[in-house]
């Protein structure tokens, strides 16, 4: 019985470890597909933040809810960015180009989300409108990136 438990426990650990880990990208194609996934995931977080701000400005969402959603989006975005940055790209010019292009968008998105959170907590309506404008452009660029490479 002890052996059965040991095997079962090892299996469970193996499942959790494998299903959550980030693998290296061995080819440019694999790296590109991971970049597209990153673009889509980060786009989802930006869109969540943008829609929430829009709803709050229209008086359809509570301030506390907005603050929580923005904070969660920022955390999730940061995690997506870190995961992408931790992938070792293959040694090709195209992979480096992909990385540079997406990294810029991710940095813009992360900065924009942080700014959005700060402005939302200060209830700075005018500042929020300007930041939403900038982030919408970043979201459009991420969408374009995903479409072009997907």
């Amino acid at each position, binding site marked *: 019985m002890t052996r059965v438990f040991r095997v079962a426990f090892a299996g469970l650990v193996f*499942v959790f470890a*494998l*299903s959550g880990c980030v693998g290296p990208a061995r080819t440019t194609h694999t790296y590109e597909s991971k970049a597209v996934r990153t673009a889509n995931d980060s786009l*989802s977080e930006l869109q969540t933040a943008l*829609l929430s701000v829009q709803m709050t400005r229209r008086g359809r969402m509570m301030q*506390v*809810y907005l603050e*929580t959603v923005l*904070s969660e989006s920022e955390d999730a975005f940061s995690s997506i960015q870190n995961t992408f940055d931790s992938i070792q790209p293959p040694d090709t010019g195209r992979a480096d180009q992909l990385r540079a292009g997406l990294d810029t968008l991710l940095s813009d998105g992360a900065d924009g989300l942080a700014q959005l959170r700060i402005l939302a907590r200060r209830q700075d309506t005018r500042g929020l409108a300007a930041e939403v404008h900038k982030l919408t452009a970043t979201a459009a660029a991420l969408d374009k990136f995903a479409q072009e490479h997907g």
Partner: protein
Amino acid sequence: MKRLLGVALGILTAIGGFVDIGDLVTNALVGSRFGLSLAWATLVGLVGICLYAEMSGRVAAVTSRGTFDLVRERLGPRAGLANLIASFLVTALTFTAEIGGIALSLELATSVNYLLWVPMLGLAVWLLIWRVKFSIMENVFGLLGLTLLVFGVALWQLHPQWGDLLHQIAVPHKPTNEGTPVYFYYAIALFGAAMTPYEVFFFSSGGVEEKWTKKDIITERINVYLGFPLGGLLSVSIAAVAAIVLLPNNISVNTLGQVGLPIAVASGKLALAVAILGFVAATFGAALETGLSCGYSVAQYFGWQWGKFVRPRDAGRFHLLVLLTLILAVGGVLTTINPITITEYSVVFSAVALPLTYFPILVIANDPDYMGDKANGRICNFLGSIYLVIIVVASAAAIPLMFWTKAGQ
């Protein structure tokens, strides 16, 4: 009149108590990625849970004994122990997810970090399990859970193309940007969320707590055959609002805040507040149910005194076990693993454990030695057997698909 009120209350609490954190997150996630093309999986799970909940309720009404007590006696201690371990682990994982779910709901209402809520919630769950009467617990949280019907209202206010929605359900098409393995991985997750094992243990143990007899079988059937399908419709409406609002905006659900976003879009601030109340009620109610189910399963297997129909001091080991499981669950949430991730794994592992949960129920409900003239009829056995095949297939496919798709990525 009193009986009629009892039946109505039973139906309402069955609807309100149907949805838990697994249903909320999985349905919204699937709706935001697949539209309603996977609603069939919820409907298949819904028929399954109705079938087996009815059987387990009938077994409780006829024998007045808990499921694990009968499983051990009928299948022997070894098979019973395997069943107990699998069911307990999955239910404890679900318990952890539910506590995380309450904390996340309160964070949405207060913007206070969810981790700060967890110790207080642990204490509140324990106090309620220790002090409050079973029927009060069940009815209050079941009725408050009805506030989630706000998702149905939101769906109506979004003015969808109803024909298009029905077409997506009736003629499912996998979205082109999603792979086939991912599609089936989420089908199994939805199936697991609908057929979560604890629902059956809680339902049958609740029957024993409320001292059901053969006379209550009709009431039990009405609760199951009316309440559960209406609860299932609620699950589909959660997926539908996500499909209408989130999918076109490229938003894929991975937080509870995103689950409520379509409510704000469709119905505004007040409805969103009602939805948050619904999140709290649904997850709190499910936390009580899963916590009690952990205690029920172990106590019934070992033959200890269990339940809330006796004073806590007369069921000391049962209450101690619930407390220890609660401490583990609270500790699990405090590890800072995202409760939504715990929820996603809990519904998939529920699917893995399904055969161990449902096979013994079919065996006992079909055994005339236990059930007398209330044993399964031919149709019930036929459907039960078909579902057992579906359950085994889903269970066998769950882990390989989890590897293949990196947990649905």
